[in-house]
């Protein structure tokens, strides 16, 4: 037990390499995005997409990872899984906030409003609220075992809720009102000059995500080891 705690709390060179590569990738991706040609209908505003789409994907990836590790914790009861689940949620929250923010900055010049109660936006906001709850619950419980169990419960119930609320919000909007704003999101994905920087950013952010989760888990493992002593 003590040995495994020591092993998982060591900052290994793989984590550092992933973090460094990810950071480099984000810088490269940023320059590629900034030098991409303006979109025909949206102009330079479309550059926000190079940032927005990858962060949103990472946010969803984080929620899947959190579900996976929470279930793994409840089945196997290894503290390591709990720490990784918590790390994915915390890092995922940052990406989710970035995705929401960049989306709002894009929406204002394009749709004319910062926020629209469209299914995707609404469910993302709900997911954000669920994970804020997750972090708050973790902060409120001191007993490590109870904290891990409660957090896993929140994460699992929360991620079951996302598809359900996606459907309900979708029906909620589509049964009655016609959509007042046309969503032109599908149009942008065609051109290679836009696709390439987006993919570079996606790869860079994936690396950053993995690196940050590993880093955060290592910190959590060290904290846990210190609490034990």
């Amino acid at each position, binding site marked *: 037990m003590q040995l495994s705690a020591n092993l998982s709390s060591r900052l290994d060179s793989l984590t550092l390499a992933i973090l460094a590569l990810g950071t480099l990738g984000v810088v490269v991706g940023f320059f590629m995005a900034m030098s991409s040609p303006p979109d025909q209908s949206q102009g330079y505003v479309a550059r926000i997409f190079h940032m927005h789409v990858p962060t949103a994907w990472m946010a969803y990836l984080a929620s899947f990872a959190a579900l996976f590790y929470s279930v793994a914790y409840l089945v196997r009861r290894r503290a390591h899984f709990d720490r990784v689940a918590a790390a994915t949620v915390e890092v995922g929250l940052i990406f989710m906030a970035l995705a929401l923010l960049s989306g709002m900055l894009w929406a204002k010049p394009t749709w004319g409003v910062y926020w629209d109660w469209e299914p995707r936006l609404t469910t993302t906001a709900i997911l954000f609220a669920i994970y*804020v709850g997750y972090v708050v*619950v973790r902060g409120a419980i001191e007993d490590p075992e109870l904290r891990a169990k409660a957090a896993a419960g929140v994460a699992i*119930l929360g991620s079951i*809720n996302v598809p359900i609320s996606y459907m309900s919000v979708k029906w909620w909007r589509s049964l009655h009102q016609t959509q007042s704003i046309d969503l032109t999101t599908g149009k942008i994905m065609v051109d290679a000059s836009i696709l390439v920087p987006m993919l570079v950013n996606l790869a860079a952010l994936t690396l950053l995500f993995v690196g940050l989760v590993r880093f955060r888990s290592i910190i959590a493992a060290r904290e846990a080891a210190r609490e034990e002593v």
Partner: protein
Amino acid sequence: MQRILWLAWRDLVLEFRGRTGLFSVVFFLVVMLFVLALAFGPAPQELRKAAPGVLWVALAFAGSLLAGRAFGLEVEDSTLDDLLLLPGSREWIYFGKLLFQLVLLLGVGLVLLVLAGGLFHLPLQPWGWYVLVLLLGSLGYAAITTFYAAMLARLRGREVLLPLLVFPLVIPVVLAAMRFTQSLAEGVPVGEVLDWLRLLLVFDAIYVTAAAMLFPHVLEG
């Protein structure tokens, strides 16, 4: 099965003997409806339009206020450990508390429905459908609040934490139940809006099952 009924019955008896909790919740909701009715103005049309939303949001508040009741007494009298010590699996504790919550919420919901009929001019004519949607909606609320109340029973800040955790999760219930109620109030034929009831049913089934399965894992001990 018998255990579930006994647990729910015992909690209900204790709740009604204690009185203060339930009555203060009902009174809070009455005041809330009154203030909201004042805020929406005197026009009956406006009030009727707002009624379903007010009704279901009020019930959501009631749900999170009453959620603490389910395990509050167990913690105060430190009988939670006794319950956990009983042989057999622990799902029945969840179902017993769920039944208790459901009965409380249904009672509060019926009071609210009658009040909304009076204060907000909500036509309560096809009352069977109203009761059905109230039942399914309350079950959805209760399934979630019972689970979280058990998990947070021994924490100090649970009064604040509970709504924070519960409200994002009950959004589908609020949306579906509200839309169905609204259609009833507008006189839309029930056959056209049955999808909302189906969504509620699916939600209830998924959440009761998931919460019952997670419950033994999450509860202390």
